């Protein structure tokens, strides 16, 4: 269990993490979501005692990270896959970490086996691909067989097979009763892994909710309808009690999963339809809307993210 209490980090004028209070619980995968620069990595570094908080506190099973006498058997973390000496072999990298915590040497072989790096154990980490470094970083996190695991953007740079592997790994670790805390800037990735979501933007807590709740609240389905006889269609829908609003491009968006009903209704009224498609607002869109106000680095483009947001808000009004 990781408990954050008013955790704050300031770099001069800039506030990286702003009064973050939340709890990361055992037995589930908790997704830590936020756009780039939201303060996810800074928060993780503070949890590990690497950065000193400006204010607030963070506790690992009730104690500060610095107070842990057996840190690696308590918390395993993957912050940066390349955070290792390139000239050292994978085996020696893990061995020096194991020795620092009195972990039996045999564990090194075990975790290398787990991540599938046994064949390259004696090779220098310098020659590793990003995916291999990522696996070595995960091996280091698993070394102490810890109760709590933290991964900072673990799927970055992995191939689909690697992504699939790490997803299953995180879920099985959580199923064993461990606390799994994983950051990402991709909602779609979290939707497939996390049971619980903590969303931050510009260092502030935006949401702390279960994934199921988030989906229920944000992933609305609707039916997109286009017709040359739009006014008649609107009337017909209104009569039938189906809420529909105009989308930006002139199409209609009807709430709910009622494609059949709308099709039959149109046929009954003799209304021509050019399009009738059931849609689902993606979680990615919901996430972007949630964090839209707090994205630090906006891309300057004609199709600003606000466009679809307005579109969808109109659609769900």
């Amino acid at each position, binding site marked *: 269990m990781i408990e954050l209490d008013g955790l704050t980090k300031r770099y001069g004028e800039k506030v990286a993490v702003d009064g973050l209070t939340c709890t990361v619980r055992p037995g589930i995968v908790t997704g830590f979501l936020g756009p780039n620069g939201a303060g996810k990595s800074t928060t993780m570094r503070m949890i590990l005692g690497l950065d000193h908080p400006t204010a607030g506190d963070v506790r690992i099973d009730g104690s500060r990270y610095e107070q842990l006498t057996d840190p690696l058997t308590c918390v395993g973390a993957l912050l940066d896959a390349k955070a*290792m000496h390139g000239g050292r072999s994978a085996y020696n990298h893990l*061995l020096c970490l194991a020795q620092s915590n009195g972990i039996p040497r045999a564990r090194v072989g075990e975790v290398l086996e787990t991540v599938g790096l046994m064949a390259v154990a004696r090779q220098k980490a310098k020659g590793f691909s990003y995916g291999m470094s990522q696996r070595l970083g995960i091996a280091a996190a698993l070394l102490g067989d810890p109760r709590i695991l933290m991964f900072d953007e673990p799927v970055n740079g992995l191939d689909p097979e690697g992504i699939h592997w790490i997803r299953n790994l995180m879920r099985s670790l959580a199923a064993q009763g461990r606390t799994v805390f994983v950051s990402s800037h991709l909602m779609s990735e979290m939707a497939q892994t996390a049971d619980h979501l903590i969303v931050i933007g510009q260092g502030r807590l935006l949401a702390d909710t*279960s994934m199921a709740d988030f989906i229920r609240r944000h992933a609305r389905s609707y039916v997109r309808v286009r017709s040359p006889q739009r006014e008649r269609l609107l009337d017909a829908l209104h009569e039938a009690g189906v809420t529909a609003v105009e989308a930006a491009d002139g199409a209609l968006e009807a709430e709910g999963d009622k494609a059949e009903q709308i099709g039959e209704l149109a046929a009954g009224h003799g209304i021509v339809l050019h399009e009738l498609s059931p849609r689902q607002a993606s979680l990615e869109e919901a996430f972007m809307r949630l964090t839209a106000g707090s994205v630090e680095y906006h891309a300057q483009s004609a199709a600003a993210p606000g466009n679809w947001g307005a579109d969808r808000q109109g659609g769900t009004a």
Partner: protein
Amino acid sequence: MSTHQPPMPQAPGAPDWQAAPGGSYPGYTSPIPVVRTHLGHAVASEWTKIRSVRSTIWTLSVFVFLVVGIGLLVGALVSAHASESSLSGTNPLSFGFFGLLVGNMCVITLGVLTTASEYGTGMIRTTMTACPSRGRVLAAKAIVFFVVAFVVSLVSVTFVAMVQSSMLSGSGTESPSGGAWLKATVGVSLYMALLGLLALFVGSIIRHSAGGITIMIGLVLAPLVLALFMATESLHSVRDFLFEYSFPSQLGVFYDSTLSGSGPRGWDPLWIMLGLAAVAGAGAYALLRNRDV
């Protein structure tokens, strides 16, 4: 073919953490025995680190090569060309000085790399996560490096001293006393290891390998170079101070060969270097404690 399903949302309250009795934290319990870590673990870890990178092997090999190579060369040249009268009253061990004058660069480099290289690679975060007690990490690095530097220095310096004294025996040189032997072997090796330790702490303060090495080479060479060009009489006292307390001159004290008649004597250079290393160590510790990694 993926059989992975999107997660089935759990029923509210499904995780059993809520059933936890107050005060204890539930969850996974590892079969790995929990060990209370101490300095010994950190030392074992740092030993694995220092022996498993090529830069250690390289810097130490070059050090041995320079100290032994130059030592033997000088010994051979002196015994071949010097007349008996010119060597009378000379301490034969003093010819070991030249190898160390060049070889110290290797000790400095290894010292700086031991701490600073972890910042270049990001390894320091992994290290500090594994051992959150920062003082312990610094102490372990200092202990391991000091022992390695001292042993390697002692072995090569003693070898050179023995070969040189046997080469030059009977050529008019005086037979060195036990005290002279001690200073030229153990004394000078301690001095080299302390110089490397100073470099290690500077590396921890600067957190940049090239920067740390540059500063250390500057510290070693600059006073002597500056003094060489201080011809003005008004700078006389400054020049003498720089000469006497410059690194090469202090190293020479261990062989009783100095640039001037005054200045540090006997074992003084060792205490001076010990003081410098202690101050740098305290500074490095204070910064390491307070800075973000």
